[in-house]
């Protein structure tokens, strides 16, 4: 059972980490609290469903098309609707929330409220020290580790990464060093939306696809970011894994309380806000002078 907890925790953690990382980056660089974030995750899963099941395209092609389309949609939405009101925090909150609901309603109208499942990208199972693992689980795990590793390299070892982290730490100073803020913000939005789309794509075959699937991850992501410390990249990843293991552990160890899974993150978020608002690696408000 511990092995199951480990594998499921890693997959859920990886999903939340990808989402939280994107959420955190976009908040750091562009100061946008992007409530549409997990709607992109849902949209990506539905687009794969659409390309693969409705248009019967090959699965791999559906993945690529869907991720690309979500990034394009995300960028367009940012440029047209969010960027113009970027400096007004409340307006951003309202607009991004409304957009998320628009996505949900659109999905509901187009695909209906049915629960859908995606075909596995790889099929088959294997035995590993007494547990049965599907290849899809292993594939997802590998993909999650690969993407997180790639993003880590991008952020910490590349020129763009330095620019992004500098911009997240102190916008005004980064501007004074000649960093083109709007350009870097757009690139960050693309990376962030891309991460959400990839998260949706790689985990979708393991989960049920339905029009409200964006809500729970959004709560978890906000809790992870608050737990890790708003603005801390490392913190949001660690926060995501902690919450994922807490959820998975609850489901496996206390199955009779599994219905409380959704409450774990909210409880953690409230507790952190009351006890240690700056989170584990808190650099909360530091860039806000």
């Amino acid at each position, binding site marked *: 059972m511990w092995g199951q907890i480990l594998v499921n925790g890693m997959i859920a953690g990886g999903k939340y980490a990808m989402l939280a990382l994107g959420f955190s980056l976009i908040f750091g660089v562009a100061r946008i609290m992007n409530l549409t974030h997990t709607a992109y995750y849902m949209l990506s899963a539905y687009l794969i469903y659409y390309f693969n099941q409705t248009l019967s395209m090959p699965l791999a092609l559906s993945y690529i098309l869907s991720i690309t389309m979500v990034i394009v949609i995300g960028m367009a939405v940012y440029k047209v609707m969010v960027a113009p009101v970027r400096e007004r925090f409340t307006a951003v909150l309202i607009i991004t929330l409304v957009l998320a609901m628009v996505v949900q309603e659109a999905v509901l109208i187009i695909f209906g409220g049915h629960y859908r499942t995606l075909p596995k990208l790889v099929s088959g199972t294997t035995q590993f020290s007494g547990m049965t693992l599907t290849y899809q689980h292993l594939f997802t795990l590998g993909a999650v580790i690969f993407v997180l590793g790639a993003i880590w390299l991008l952020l910490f070892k590349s020129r763009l990464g330095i620019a992004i982290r500098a911009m997240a730490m*102190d916008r005004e100073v*980064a501007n*004074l060093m000649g960093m*083109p*803020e709007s350009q870097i913000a757009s690139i960050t939005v693309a990376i962030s939306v891309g991460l959400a789309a990839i998260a949706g794509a790689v985990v979708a075959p393991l989960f049920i696809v339905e029009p409200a699937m964006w809500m729970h991850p959004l709560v978890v992501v906000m809790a992870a970011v608050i737990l890790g410390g708003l603005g801390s990249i490392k913190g949001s990843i660690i926060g995501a894994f902690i919450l994922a293991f807490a959820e998975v552990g609850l489901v496996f160890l206390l199955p009779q309380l599994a219905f409380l899974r959704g409450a774990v993150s909210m409880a953690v978020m409230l507790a952190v806000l009351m006890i240690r608002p700056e989170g584990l690696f808190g650099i909360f408000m530091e860039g806000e002078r």
Partner: protein
Amino acid sequence: MTGDFLEVNNLSKRFGGLHAIRDVSFSVNRQEVVGLIGPNGAGKTTLVRLILGIIKANSGQVIFKGQNLTGKKTWTIVGQGIAGTFQNARPFAHLPIIANVMVPCLGPRASRRGEWVKTVEARAMDALEFVGIADLAKEPASRLSQGDLKRLEVARAIACEPELLILDEPFGGLNPTETSLMAKSIRRLHKGGRFGRLHSEGPAMIIIEHKLSELMKIVDRVIVLNFGETLTMGTPEEVVNDPKVIQAYIGKEVV
């Protein structure tokens, strides 16, 4: 006044009821080092923030190398060749010192197409070498002393490879030894040339400073602000002996 390098024309800025900058005009030549002095609250910092586009002027113009920079974004202005430092050192506290200096090296002005991270790092290292804190390169910026922070600010500003450098209190919080070291760096920088892989244009400078005796040694000309207006300008000797300036500074030491 015909300074074709930097021209500031009738710049004004209001904060609510406070007229922080009132009709200020001056110019700076390509070869000049200009001191900007005045009592506290005179509007010195506001003035340079207006030039750098960090805040927007209510009226007036800033013309740099014949281009109108009024209302432009800060990064565009920096891209044109003006760099500045903040009065309170503001490092990227969670980045190592070397990465702090790599940031300006990546700006559109100073970046070289296709350059790898390693090369950018080497260039940033030369900037640290220049100000004399290369040995601290791997430390996080939050560990620096006040004096070293000021040097980091200067290193970051010169890594932008500016033609006009605006320093806001470069000697602030420094002890006499550190101050004279900093003054020496500033003079060397103004001469221009190559510092390792870093190229200095020998920038013109505007320096805000309260330590007048140190400032007067490195500037060609001084502009005095008081209550947001230019009180007077002239050579250091003229300004120091100007009764209006002495009056504005009453209760404060003047050289």
